[in-house]
C-alpha cells in the first residue's frame, strides 16, 4: 500500500515541508454542488491538471491523501537530485588532482548528515510550489483525505460527497517490493524511506539496476558507502541502448561499486545489526553483510482503495488504470494521468498527460498520448538521456535506420572539461534527415536532449540542425557535429566531381 509515513526526521525543514504540503491545521472546504473536475492525487499530474482547470475558470477539487507534490517533490526527483549533486561534488574533489587542483585532505571528508540536511532544506524550500495554500489561492478546492468513488459521477472524501462532471485519477505509483524471503523481516529502504536517513549506512546493498537503483547506488557510493549492486539482467538500465548501459556499468565499477550482474537475491537474514544478503549468480551463492538494503525494482500503480468498481473504471494491479490513447478510462467521464496509468513513469510525462486530460476532458480535445515525443534521463554521472525510438525498436518496425555517432572524446569542450565518457547518437530514417530517436551519454545529457526533442516535435531534420550556430565550445556542439556528419554523406561522388571541376574552371 502507499506509504503515509511522515518525512523524517522531525526537524525544522521537514516541519516546513509538511506545513506546505499537508498543513496539520488544514480545514477541508465545503464541496461545491458539482465540479467541472475532481482530481484524485496531488502529485505532478494532479497539480498540473488542477492549475490548468482553475486557470481556465473551471471549478476544480484536488484531493490528496498524503503529501501534495507526490513522489517528485517528496521522495523522488527533488531529494534524489540534491543528493546526487553532493555526490558529484565529492567525486570532483577526489579527481581534483587531474585538474591541477591539490586537495590537502584525503580521503574526502563527507558529512553525510549535512548532505541529507541540505536535501531536506532545499526540498522544503521548493515545496511552496506545490503547497495546499498555493493551490487554494489558484482557485482549487483542496481536500486532504482518502478519496473513494461512490458512483460513476461522484466520490467521497473525509465524509464529504463530491459530484463531478469529469474526474481524473492521478494517484501515482509506489515502489514494488520483490518477494525475497526475509526481506520484510530484515527491513529495507525504498525511495519513500531512503531520504529519511540521517546517518550513513557504511555498507549498502542496492537491489535492482533500473534508473532509481543506478542513481542511488552511485550517489551513496560517492558519499562514502560501500555499495553492492545486484541486478538480475546482464546490464544496468536494460531498456537503454547497450553501449550507454555499458559505459555506465564501467563508471559504476570505477567508482568502486561491487557489481553483481545476472544475479538474484535468494534470501535475506539478520545477524545482530547486520543484514545478510544471499546473492546467487550462475548457481553460485555468496552472502554479503550490509547495514541497509535499498530496493528499486519497479513501481506498482496505486489503484487500491479507490472503489474503482463503483465508478466502472477498469484496471489491473500491474498496468494500473486502463486508458485509451486519449487518456480516457472505461468510464467516459473519468480520465487518468501520470504513473497510475502510463508506461513511462516520469514527472514530465505526468505533466504532459495532465495537459492532454485538460484539453480532452473539458474542451472536446482529441489529443493523443501516442503523439507525444517523450524524452527521459537517468541522472547518473554521466547522465543517460533518450528520446524517441531505439534502433532495435525501429528495425523491428522495419524502419531503415542509420545512426550518427559523435563520441564526446572528440568534442573539444568535453575534452577540456575532462568529461569525455559518453556520446551523442542520433538515429535517422535512412534516406532522409528525419530524426526518429537519440541517445546522449554526457554529464549533462538531460540538458542536451531537449534540442533533439524540439527538433523531433517541430519536424526539424539534421539538415536544419547543421545550419544552427552552436556556441563554441560547448558539449551540445556534438549534436551539430552529428548533423554535419549527416550533411557530408549527402555529398555524393558525382557532386564532389562536379564541384572539383567547377573550382578548377574558376581558379
Amino acid at each position, binding site marked *: 500500500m502507499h506509504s503515509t509515513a511522515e518525512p523524517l526526521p522531525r526537524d525544522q525543514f521537514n516541519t516546513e515541508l509538511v506545513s506546505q504540503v499537508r498543513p496539520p491545521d488544514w480545514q477541508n472546504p465545503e464541496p461545491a454542488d458539482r465540479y467541472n473536475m475532481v482530481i484524485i492525487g496531488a502529485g505532478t499530474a494532479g497539480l498540473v491538471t488542477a492549475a490548468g482547470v482553475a486557470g481556465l475558470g473551471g471549478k476544480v477539487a484536488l484531493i490528496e491523501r498524503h503529501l501534495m507534490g507526490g513522489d517528485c517533490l517528496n521522495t523522488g526527483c527533488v531529494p534524489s537530485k540534491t543528493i546526487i549533486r553532493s555526490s558529484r561534488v565529492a567525486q570532483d574533489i*577526489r*579527481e*581534483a*588532482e*587531474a*585538474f*591541477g587542483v591539490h586537495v590537502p585532505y584525503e580521503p574526502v571528508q563527507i558529512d553525510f548528515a549535512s548532505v541529507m540536511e541540505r536535501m531536506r532544506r532545499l526540498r522544503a524550500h521548493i515545496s511552496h510550489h506545490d503547497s495546499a495554500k498555493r493551490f487554494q489561492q489558484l482557485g482549487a478546492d483542496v481536500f486532504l483525505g482518502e478519496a473513494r468513488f461512490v458512483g460513476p459521477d461522484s466520490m467521497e472524501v473525509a465524509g464529504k460527497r463530491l459530484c463531478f462532471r469529469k474526474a481524473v485519477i492521478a494517484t501515482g505509483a509506489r515502489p514494488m517490493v520483490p518477494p525475497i524471503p526475509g526481506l520484510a523481516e530484515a527491513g529495507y529502504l525504498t525511495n519513500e524511506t531512503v531520504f529519511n536517513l540521517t546517518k550513513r549506512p557504511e555498507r549498502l546493498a542496492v537491489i535492482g539496476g533500473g534508473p532509481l537503483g543506478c542513481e542511488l547506488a552511485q550517489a551513496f557510493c560517492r558519499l562514502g558507502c560501500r555499495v553492492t549492486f545486484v541486478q538480475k*539482467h*546482464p546490464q544496468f538500465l536494460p531498456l537503454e541502448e*547497450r*553501449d550507454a548501459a*555499458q*559505459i555506465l556499468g*564501467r563508471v559504476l*565499477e*570505477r567508482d568502486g561499486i561491487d557489481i553483481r550482474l*545476472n544475479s538474484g537475491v535468494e534470501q535475506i537474514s539478520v545477524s545482530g545489526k547486520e543484514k545478510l544478503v544471499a546473492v546467487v549468480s*550462475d*548457481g*553460485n551463492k555468496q552472502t554479503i553483510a550490509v547495514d541497509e538494503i535499498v530496493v528499486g525494482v519497479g513501481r506498482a500503480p496505486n489503484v487500491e482503495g479507490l472503489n474503482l468498481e463503483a465508478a466502472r473504471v477498469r484496471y489491473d494491479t500491474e498496468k494500473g488504470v486502463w486508458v485509451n490513447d486519449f487518456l480516457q478510462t472505461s468510464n467516459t467521464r473519468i480520465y487518468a494521468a501520470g504513473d497510475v496509468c502510463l508506461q513511462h513513469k516520469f514527472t514530465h510525462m505526468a505533466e504532459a498527460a495532465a495537459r492532454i486530460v485538460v484539453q480532452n476532458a473539458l474542451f472536446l480535445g482529441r489529443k493523443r498520448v501516442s503523439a507525444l515525443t517523450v524524452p527521459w534521463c537517468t541522472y547518473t554521472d554521466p547522465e543517460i538521456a533518450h528520446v524517441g525510438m531505439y*534502433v*532495435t525498436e525501429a*528495425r*523491428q518496425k522495419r524502419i*531503415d*535506420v*542509420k*545512426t*550518427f*555517432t559523435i*563520441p564526446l*572524446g*572528440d568534442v573539444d569542450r568535453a*575534452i577540456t572539461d*575532462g568529461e*569525455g565518457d559518453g*556520446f551523442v*547518437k542520433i538515429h535517422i530514417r*535512412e534516406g532522409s534527415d528525419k530524426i526518429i530517436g537519440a541517445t546522449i551519454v554526457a554529464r549533462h545529457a538531460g540538458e542536451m536532449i531537449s534540442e533533439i526533442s524540439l527538433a523531433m516535435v517541430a519536424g526539424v531534420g539534421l539538415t536544419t540542425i547543421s545550419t544552427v550556430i552552436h556556441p563554441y565550445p560547448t558539449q551540445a556542439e556534438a549534436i551539430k557535429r552529428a548533423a554535419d*556528419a*549527416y550533411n*557530408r*554523406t549527402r555529398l*555524393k*561522388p558525382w557532386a564532389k566531381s562536379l564541384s572539383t571541376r567547377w573550382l578548377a574552371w574558376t581558379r
Partner: protein
Amino acid sequence: MFQSSYFKLQPYSPCYLCVLCASVVNICEKSGYMTEEILHELQRDTFDFFMHETNPANGLVPDNTNSGAPSSIAAVGLSLAAYTVGVERGFMARAEASQRTLAALRFFWNSPQGPEPDVTGYKGFFYHFLDMQTGRRAWKCELSTIDTTFLIAGALAAAAYFASDSEDEREISTLADALFRRVDWRWALNGKATVAHGWKPESGFLNYRWEGYNEAILLYALGLGSPTFPLPPESYRAFTCTYQWENLYGCDFLFAGPLFIHQLSHVWIDFRGIQDEFMRAKGIDYFENTRRATLLQQQYAIRNPLEFEGYGEHCWGLTAGAGPGPATRRIHGMQRRFYSYEARGIPYGPDDGTIAPWAAVASLPFAPEIVLPAINYINNIHHELLSEYGYLCSFNPTFANESQGETGRTGWISNAYYGLDQGPIVLMIENYRTGFFWQLMRRCHYLATGLRRAGFRGGWL
C-alpha cells in the same frame, strides 16, 4: 597476388578513410619494407603454438600458455583449421596433421554427453573449457554455443581438406559430419528467436543471446545449414534485427566495438561479394565492413581520446585479450581502471590502453595498407612482444610494471599466448597470402547452405 584484386572488387561508394589510405598502399608497396619472409616467419612461429601446446593424445589445445590452463574448444577448432594451412605451408606433414585431427575428432565424438555437470558436452554442444587431460568440463564453465561453433567449423574444415580415400581421411570426414549433425541448434533457441550464449547444468540457459552484430554469423550459418536440427530462417532475421548501422568518424559501418567481432566469422567465411538482406540494403558486404572497422580502429588510436601511451597510426587494435588488471591506477590525476581479460572496443570502450597485436594481423586481408606498417612497427619498436610463438597476446604502454616502477616504452606485456588469438593469425595471414583457407571453406556445403538460408546471395554462392 590475391590481395591485389581486393579493392577492385569493391564497387562501393568510398568512405573517406579508404581514400586516405589509398596513398598509404602505394607507399607500402613501393617501399617493400614488409617482406613475404616476415609474414611467413610470423605465421610459422604462431603455428608452432598448436604444434607444441596441443595434447597429442586427445587433440585438446590449451586456452592459453599459463600454467594449468584448461583447453578451449574454440582453440581446438582453430587448431584443426590451422593444420590444413600447416600442411599447405610445409609446417607439418599431412599424415601428422591427419593423426592430430583424428585424435581430436575421436575424442569429441566419444566423450560423454549429457545433462550431468562433469561431462564434456550436451545436446551436441561442448563446454567452453575442458580439462586438458580428462576432457571433462573445467571451472564449472558454460556449455558454449559460439565456442562449439568454432570447434565444429574446424572439424568441417578438416573434413573438406582431408578428403582423400585413405582410411584415416574417410574417418575424419565421417566424424566431422557426425559431430555436426549431433548439434541441436534448435534446443539452444530455448523458445526464443535468437540463440542463447550458453547453458549450465546448475542454472540453465545464460541470460545472454546472440544479438547485436557479433561473431555469431558463423554460428547462425552453421545452425541454418544443419540437416538434423536446423535453426529457422527467422532466427537470422531476429539476429540482424539488432544490428546498428552507424556513421562514426565520417564512415558508415555495421557497428561493433571490439575488432575480433569483425574478424572471427570472417576467418572462415569469404564474405567478398556475398550479401545478406541487410548488406544488400547498405550496398556493401561484410568484408568491406570489416575493412572499415579496421580503418576506424586506426582512426581511434590516432585520436586517442583517453590519452593512452603508445597509441598511433601504426599502434592500434582494441579487441578481446589479456590486460594488466584488475587494478586501479591514478594516471595524470585521473582514476583509471585496468582490466584483465576483457573485450575492449572502440569508441565506447572499454579502453584501458591495452593493444593486441593479433587484432591488427587478423585484419591483414581487409586493410593490408595499414596492417603491414603496423606489423613492421611492432617488430621494430615493440620487439619484446615477439617470442617463441610470435606475438604475445597484448601489451599496455600506459601501465607500468611493478618491477619497472615507471612506464616503459612497452609497459606491461602479457606473458601468455591464447589459442583464440593464434588461430586467426595463422589463418588470416594465409587468407591474405593465397586465400587458401577461404577457398577450402567454400567447399563446405553445410556452410554454403546455411548462408543461403540466411539470405546470402551473389559472389561465390
